[in-house]
């Protein structure tokens, strides 16, 4: 065993490190703003059925294409007279649902495979081929295949997006496992007689959490974009259920007459995704040991 880097405080999942990361995040205005947006979005998503002024599927043929500001319809109505605000609220909820479901799927499969790939030499080649295989099916093509076999639905869209994100998770977990494996505290645990599973779950996984966390914050917004694309194409959430993607698909046909119905759902997606991306960037900066020289 070569004497690699001496284990320092940052390799332990201790409270002082967490406090430092949180302190650094709180000092960054962009992090605070994006985090507030995310909390608000989560709040809206959870309370969506109570917050939405109308049922998102309730049509009103006397009031089609009402512009924003019409009394009773803050953001106007669409081609069937449905309330745009209510559909955006429930659509955002669906977006977050798919985003989290997809990333949870990816983590569930990707984290164990990444750990195994980085820690056990003999698994590495097999798992690498598996990663290559997954990478050779771009997510949309995967979704197309899945929709052809199992039909188009929210669940299948989430699975397709999740599968497409597995390689990214495997890659970061693998490289972090390789790095942690060579450190003294892991070697000490091995010398101490700890089994592979114990080392992986007690020493490596806790220290790899921050990498996984950053990767997840990056993966959720791309899953949200993925859901929007699939629903827009008709391969995701099926109408009349509200989804930001399907709203855009219908709005496209009437875009010249009711531009708000085409603009607002897109802006919503952008704000959601931007908040995740900005927060992910801030989190990465806050966790970066290179920045710890304060």
């Amino acid at each position, binding site marked *: 065993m070569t004497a690699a880097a001496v284990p320092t405080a940052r390799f332990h999942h201790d409270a002082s490190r967490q406090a430092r990361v949180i302190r650094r995040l709180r000092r960054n205005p962009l992090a605070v703003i994006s985090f507030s947006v995310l909390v608000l979005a989560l709040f809206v998503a959870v309370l969506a059925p109570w917050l939405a002024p109308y049922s998102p599927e309730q049509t009103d043929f006397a009031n089609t294409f009402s512009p924003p500001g019409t009394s009773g319809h803050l953001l106007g109505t669409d081609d069937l007279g449905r309330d745009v605000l209510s559909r955006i609220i429930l659509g955002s909820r669906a977006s977050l649902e798919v985003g989290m479901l997809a990333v949870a799927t990816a983590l569930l499969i990707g984290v164990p495979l990444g750990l195994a790939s980085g820690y056990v030499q003999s698994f590495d080649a097999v798992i*690498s*081929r598996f990663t*290559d*295989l997954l*990478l*050779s*099916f*771009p*997510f*949309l*093509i995967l979704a*197309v*295949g899945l*929709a*052809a*076999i199992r039909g188009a639905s929210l669940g299948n869209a989430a699975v397709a997006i999740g599968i*497409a994100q597995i390689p990214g998770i495997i890659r970061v977990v693998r490289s972090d496992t390789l790095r942690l494996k060579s450190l003294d505290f892991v070697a000490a645990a091995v010398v101490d007689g700890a089994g592979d599973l114990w080392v992986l779950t007690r020493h490596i996984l806790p220290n790899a959490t921050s990498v996984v966390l950053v990767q997840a914050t990056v993966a959720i*917004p791309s899953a949200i*974009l993925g859901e*929007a*694309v699939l629903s*827009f*194409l*008709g*391969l995701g959430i099926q109408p009349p259920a509200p989804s930001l993607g399907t709203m*855009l698909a219908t*709005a*496209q046909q009437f*875009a*010249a007459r009711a*531009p708000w119905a*085409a*603009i607002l*759902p*897109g802006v919503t*997606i*952008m704000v959601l*995704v*931007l908040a995740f*991306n*900005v927060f992910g*960037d801030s989190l990465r900066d806050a966790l970066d040991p290179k920045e710890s020289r304060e």
Partner: protein
Amino acid sequence: MRRYLLNRAWQSLVTLFLATVVVFLGVRALPGDPALALAGEDRTPEVLAAIRQQYGLDQSLPVQFWHFVSNALHGDLGTSIRTGTSVASMLRTALPVTIELSVLAILLATFLGVGAGVVAAVSRGRPAEWFANAIALIGLSVPNFWLGLIAILYLSVATGLFPASGFVPLLEDPIANLHHIILPAVILGTGLSAVIMRQTRSSMLDSLSTDYVRTAKAKGLPPRVVIGRHALRNSLIVVITIVGLQLGGLISGAVVTEQIFGLPGFGKMTIDAVFQRDYPVIQAVVLVTATSYIVINFLVDLLYSLIDPRIRVGGESA
């Protein structure tokens, strides 16, 4: 070098083989009798029998797989059950559109992304950096199909600057072709240019703080030479890798972009096939995408190893 190449080529072949197996089994995983699915609505016993014979569905799986692979290698990717034309000939008309769209998008994205990345890195701490970063983050977060929709609404429908849909082949009328394809290419390139910008910026910042750049500056070389010849050249390797890594996203993006702008490319062919349950076309589309993805990635790796010798060494020791 040779060992690295052989190793890399072997890996690609294994992946390609596995991808073919997945596609082959995927069609067999269709619920019910694949012959029924392949027949579509035309389900007379004669048609079913003909399909079973044509696809060899009455034979064992390994034999079927062998026929599938050898047909594909001979350029026979099956026949569309909707139009009756061969999938290979459909691809011959659709692929050039998608390739032109993607190449143009990559060129635009590289040009914009590298430019903005250099500006951001050089003007560290000044408004220009802040502005470039903000634009890149927004570019990364905006759904590009929505951007396309808005572009059609305001640049095509409202002002008539660009055609809202349609396509003219490059060889027929290059000017009209460019007029039709430039807006979709810009839209497809937005996300990619944001990624390239962010990577260029961070790797430029790395190279700007290296000793050789400091030496170049100390020698009194003008900033343009230091930035262009010393720092940027070493950062460009990153761009090639990024384009390689983003290829899957680009293919997905091309499908949506074609759908919005009504370009008769590979993406439109794919989506049409899904909605018409045209299984032979879907099977071919998935196979062709996976194959091209694997081949292009192999080429990107090759290019990468030619530019950066350290990669070869790393590959050989692995």
